């Protein structure tokens, strides 16, 4: 079983839609949860990170963590064509220097 599971999509939505991206994980020791956005032929860029359970909002983006279900989500409100990219979830255990475990990424296309 992989440490982190993510539906690869592809996901295609009309402009203005609410997008929900999800990951599940198996290691209960994970405490830091991150979402990266990766445009084609670019390196990943950090969107948001959260610690433990709860919600975090940043503009049109909301990250949710449910540790009891080992499930994390990223919601994008009022999606824009510029949001078209691959979204990667990543997580790590507590403590310094721990490696990140990435999902496979979900490819999103927002249609104008």
């Amino acid at each position, binding site marked *: 079983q992989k440490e982190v599971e993510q539906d690869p999509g592809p996901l295609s939505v009309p402009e203005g839609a609410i997008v929900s991206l999800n990951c599940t994980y198996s290691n209960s020791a994970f405490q*830091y949860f991150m979402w990266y956005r990766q445009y084609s032929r670019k390196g990943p860029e950090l969107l948001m990170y959260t610690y433990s359970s709860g919600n975090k909002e940043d503009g049109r983006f909301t990250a949710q963590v449910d540790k009891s279900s080992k499930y994390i989500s990223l919601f994008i409100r009022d999606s824009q064509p510029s949001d078209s990219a691959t979204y990667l979830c990543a997580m790590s255990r507590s403590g310094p*220097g721990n490696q990140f475990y990435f999902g496979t990424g979900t490819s999103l296309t927002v249609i104008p």
Partner: protein
Amino acid sequence: EAGVAQSPRYKIIEKRQSVAFWCNPISGHATLYWYQQILGQGPKLLIQFQNNGVVDDSQLPKDRFSAERLKGVDSTLKIQPAKLEDSAVYLCASSLVWGSFGEQYFGPGTRLTVT
């Protein structure tokens, strides 16, 4: 602030040849990471440096891959000899301090094709 620089951006080699990738992290960043991203997969950590020392190289195929970070600044990742399954994007990332989760800054990557 300049980002993480990587070169070359693209490389095509035949199997059994050798290849080297270069990374220059953001100025002042102590921690440097090399990742392998195979098409359709998430990045997989190959090696992590703290200054010029190796913190984690547990997933580095040491029979063919090597990496160094002399003087604790830029780094080189080498593959010798290359196999077909090494075709991937090799990403370099850096962070300011060790363990500063969530603050890894990635370079654009080097896309390697092994034929």
